[in-house]
């Protein structure tokens, strides 16, 4: 027992709360109104990884695992929709509002994975450094400006399409340096992404991959969409061009995938990378 808790001024209570793990913070917030108001003001917890696993196992449950700096090693599970809505999502909201999440992964391709991040409360912006997998557009709108550093999206257009143009203009993505994007299709041959990457001066090894059906889609289409670019190398299957950073170039490559499907790959490479090393350098 520590009977002097109520005699501590708020700033010293906050000094204590900053050492509490996530579970204890949630529970302290459940004791009374005063503490409930205090807990969100405490220094944010560092969550090293938050992995959401909403695969369609029995009854569409939600599971996630969390590893934090204050010793949390949680594997909560919410077995049905009612539990997810009443406890799962409020807990996720609490985590995102009271933590700096170094890595959020939501890798399942099921629609339910994206659903898990819909409708979360956000009185404070979410601070997430790396995101992998998928999330709905309104989730990104709740994220703090410039929070993302690494972005790794898969199957963005599989069911509920995200507008990549709008997404890349969101404040939360403006400091993202390393990107890995995979689309089913991309309406402008990835030109909007390429232009944004040049503007953000993203890191080498950033890649984007999308597919088109039909032989009529070529590298020329990409070059047209890009407008004025300073081309370094041009073949039927590849174009290499300069960026604003003289240490970096970009390439767009077209490869036959399967049947009549062609795979297009945009990549940021070092300006001094030799052609023979493309394959080994761009690891998709």
């Amino acid at each position, binding site marked *: *027992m*520590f*009977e*002097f*808790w*109520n*005699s*501590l001024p708020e*700033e*010293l209570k906050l*000094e*204590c*709360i*900053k*050492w*509490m*793990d996530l*579970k*204890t913070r949630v*529970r*302290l917030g*459940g*004791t*009374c*109104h*005063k*503490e409930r108001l205090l807990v969100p003001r405490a220094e944010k917890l*560092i969550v*090293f990884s938050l992995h959401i696993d909403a695969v369609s196992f029995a009854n569409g449950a939600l599971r996630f695992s969390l590893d934090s*700096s204050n010793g949390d090693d949680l594997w909560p599970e919410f077995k049905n929709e009612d539990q997810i809505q009443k406890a799962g999502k409020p807990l996720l909201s609490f985590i995102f509002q009271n933590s700096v999440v170094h890595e959020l992964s939501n890798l399942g391709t099921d629609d339910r994975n994206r659903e898990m991040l819909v409708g979360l409360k956000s009185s404070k912006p979410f601070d997430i450094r790396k995101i992998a997998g998928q999330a709905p557009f309104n989730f990104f709108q709740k994220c703090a400006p410039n929070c993302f550093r690494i972005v790794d999206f898969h199957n963005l257009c599989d069911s509920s399409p995200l507008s990549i143009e709008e997404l890349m203009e969101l404040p939360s993505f403006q400091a993202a340096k390393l990107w890995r994007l995979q689309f089913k299709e991309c309406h402008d041959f990835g030109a909007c992404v390429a232009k944004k990457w040049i503007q953000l001066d993203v890191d080498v090894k950033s890649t984007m991959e999308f597919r088109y059906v039909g032989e009529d889609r070529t590298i020329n289409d990409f070059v047209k969409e890009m407008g004025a670019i300073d081309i370094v190398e041009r073949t039927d299957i590849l174009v290499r061009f300069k960026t604003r950073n003289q240490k970096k170039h970009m390439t767009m490559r077209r490869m036959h995938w399967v049947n009549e499907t062609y795979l297009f790959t945009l990549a940021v490479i070092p300006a001094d990378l030799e052609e023979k090393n493309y394959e080994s350098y761009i690891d998709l």
Partner: protein
Amino acid sequence: MSVENAPVVDVDEAAIPVEKKMYYRFESNDKKEFRVSELAIQQSETLNRLVEAMGYTSEDVENKPAIAIENIDGKTLKLVFQWCEHHKGEAIPVDDGSVPKIVEIPEFDAKLMDIDNGLLFKLIWAADYLNIVQLLNVSCKKVANMAQGKTPAQLRRVYLLPSDEEDEAAKRAAQEAQDPRAREVEEEFEERKRQGGNSFF
């Protein structure tokens, strides 16, 4: 290599520059005096700035009255200075947000803080007042650890917290107990503020 087998080297002691250590004298609010090394004082940002501003020489330290610390008692100050002496020379944690803070309570600190809650409470206050970052960290962490693994009901007992119902009842009682005239004055003041009058004067 054992101590017996270590090579013996003649040392001309006069040739070794002797670092003169300075010990400051502090006095608690119950008139207990402490001598604390210059290096230990560096753990406290408040005291460090104070002694720097005073610019005492070794003679001043001996001849002038001990520096009074008005709001900390001797028992607490003894713990504070024991901690500072033990941790002297250690880097003071800087909160730049770049790395997650992980603090383990060292054995020495755990023993030092094996004290009653009243004294722990005073120690937290003193660490905050004297701005001793790491002492504040470990003492607050000790209080945080008391909550580890507890349910909300258990937490209410650990920290003597009211329930929401008790909270509401206390708020109502406080409002009822308030002097009606004082309440009128407050309401009048709030009304004036709303109307743009900035004060009663």
